[in-house]
């Protein structure tokens, strides 16, 4: 996985609450057996008309936001289905940071596995960032992971929290499976114990 350090880019505003993973990527695109190439169908049903033409009103189709690297989204982003195709599509589109007041649990986990940084901020800071995102392509935000800071286009600095283990993995582009396999002896030990305590499992 690529290392995540800093993003300086356009932030797109999506104030709608409860954006679910069916909206992020509808099921017709889940039939792939690959992880790549899903950016073109990100937000498919909102982004394209029934005839396949782009919906000009949709935020990521507007000239200012076509290259967005940050998404400022409404409450409870990523709810619903566990499909990792949602973060795969977001990443493939080029978005590296999603900011909201809250995320659904599975989506939140899935982001870290794919080098996407989901940031939870309070309602007050969210309003500031949403306003900034509405300013378009000349207003670029900076997200600095090491310092855990978001800087708006006019220099307002907002601190954010992140689990230290997850931060470490993102900063170093670490693969979870490799890390866990280093703890193999703990798993062996657990299995020995469990096979005595609960042999029916």
């Amino acid at each position: 996985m690529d290392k995540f350090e800093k993003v300086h880019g356009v932030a797109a505003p999506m104030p709608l609450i409860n954006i679910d993973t069916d909206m992020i990527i509808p099921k017709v695109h889940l039939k792939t057996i690959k992880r790549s190439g899903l950016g073109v169908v990100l937000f498919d049903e909102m982004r394209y008309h029934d005839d396949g033409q782009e919906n000009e009103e949709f935020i990521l189709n507007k000239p200012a936001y076509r290259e967005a690297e940050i998404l400022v989204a409404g409450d409870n982003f990523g709810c619903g289905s566990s499909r990792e195709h949602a973060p795969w599509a977001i990443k493939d589109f080029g978005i590296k940071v999603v900011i909201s007041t809250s995320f659904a649990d599975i989506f939140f986990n899935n982001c870290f596995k794919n080098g996407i940084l989901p940031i939870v901020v309070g309602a007050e800071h969210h309003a500031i960032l949403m306003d900034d995102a509405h300013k378009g392509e000349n207003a670029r935000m900076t997200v600095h992971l090491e310092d855990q800071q978001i800087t708006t286009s006019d220099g307002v600095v907002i601190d954010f929290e992140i689990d230290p283990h997850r931060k470490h993995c993102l900063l170093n582009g670490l693969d979870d499976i490799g890390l866990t396999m280093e703890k193999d002896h703990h798993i062996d030990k657990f299995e020995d114990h469990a096979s005595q305590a609960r042999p029916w499992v």
Partner: protein
Amino acid sequence: MSPKTLYDKIWDAHVAHEADDGTCLLYIDRHLVHEVTSPQAFEGLRMAGRKVRAPEKTIAVPDHNVPTTPDRMNGIENPESRIQVEALDKNAKDFGIHYYPVNDVRQGIVHIVGPEQGWTLPGMTVVCGDSHTATHGAFGALAHGIGTSEVEHVLATQTLIQKKSKNMKVEITGKLQPGVTAKDITLAVIGETGTAGGTGYVIEYCGEAIRDLSMEGRMTVCNMAIEGGARAGLIAPDETTFEYVKGRPHAPKGAQWEAALTWWKTLFTDEGAHFDKVITLRGEDIAPVVTWGTSPEDVLPITATVPNPEDFEGGKVDAARRSIEYMGLKAGQKLSEVEIDTVFIGSCTNGRIEDLRAAAEILKGKKIKDGIRAMVVPGSGLVRAQAEEEGLADIFKEAGFEWRLAGCSMCLAMNPDQLQPGERCAATSNRNFEGRQGRGGRTHLLSPAMAAAAAITGRLTDVREMM
């Protein structure tokens, strides 16, 4: 020792390693796998030259993509769906995991097959690359959905990297009124908490109304814990649970059964254990409900009217406006006057035998309204066979329902069972999101009995009028 919740007990019994910052390796007892969220995980294993660590604890079944029409015996027509199912066939074989192929009578929705075959047992940790894994919590198993990277992680290591969630208690006191079911309980709870109300928590459902439910009903309740945002839902195991589990193909037998039972009987929340959040509903206050919008929290009693977006606060005002427009409804419209085109009975929420019995009870000797498309998709081949044996299939067919083979079907519409734009469906499934059952499709979530009533009248209907 300080008192523990049921969640605390199961969690503590499965921590293989805990780091200083509280990050744990949680050991996984059962890993359920289906064709949509697993191909990239198996591919990852191959590329890294890794094996499945515990193939004997890994169970796969194709369900999301499979057609539910009888001609599926001749192969799957859609090439992409076929490739995914064939990939699962191959992965199951190559990695030596338990497998129920499409044409096995035991095939069905993964969350129905697991309990049915006795793979799901009290006190276990159960994961699957599917958010409705919460279903298995009905057995007092800690069960939740994971993404594909985590599927790969569990395949390779039989563990998950986790931090513990907080404890939430949802108590349903007293008795349910006639016509009110497990589905109404679980929707009413989401109506109360909102779809993010459970975020960061594992919910334990308790109270007399929960205790009184069958295992099928408990699975319906836990299934939708994820719709309330919770990582998992749990119900403490009791005699109802043990009775259901006993004798299932993969349940323990003989001395192991006795040993298991001894441990399972310790799986309850201790007196005085701490919950970070508590919600209490009176069973008597729950009515048969139906959703009006495009989020499971958009739920009201069938006797209510479509709300006015202005009555909400914050971001919900715009969301409700968008929902009502998408759903083609008007504020103030009576829900019981909303005409439907289609009825779908099935899914991991309501595709079990008890659900089919409840629907058949209403349909017996009646016909569905002219012009309504109605289908029953049993949750597994065995549910289907049992329904045929009990004469339920005949009731459905005589009423005008299509009687399908097992699969996820129109719950998420990855197979050919889909809504057309604008088509309105009364569905026993779990999500009413925009486009969920087909692009432009409109979904009203309700119980199997309510779905049957709607099929007869052609509109959303209070099932109590038919009892």
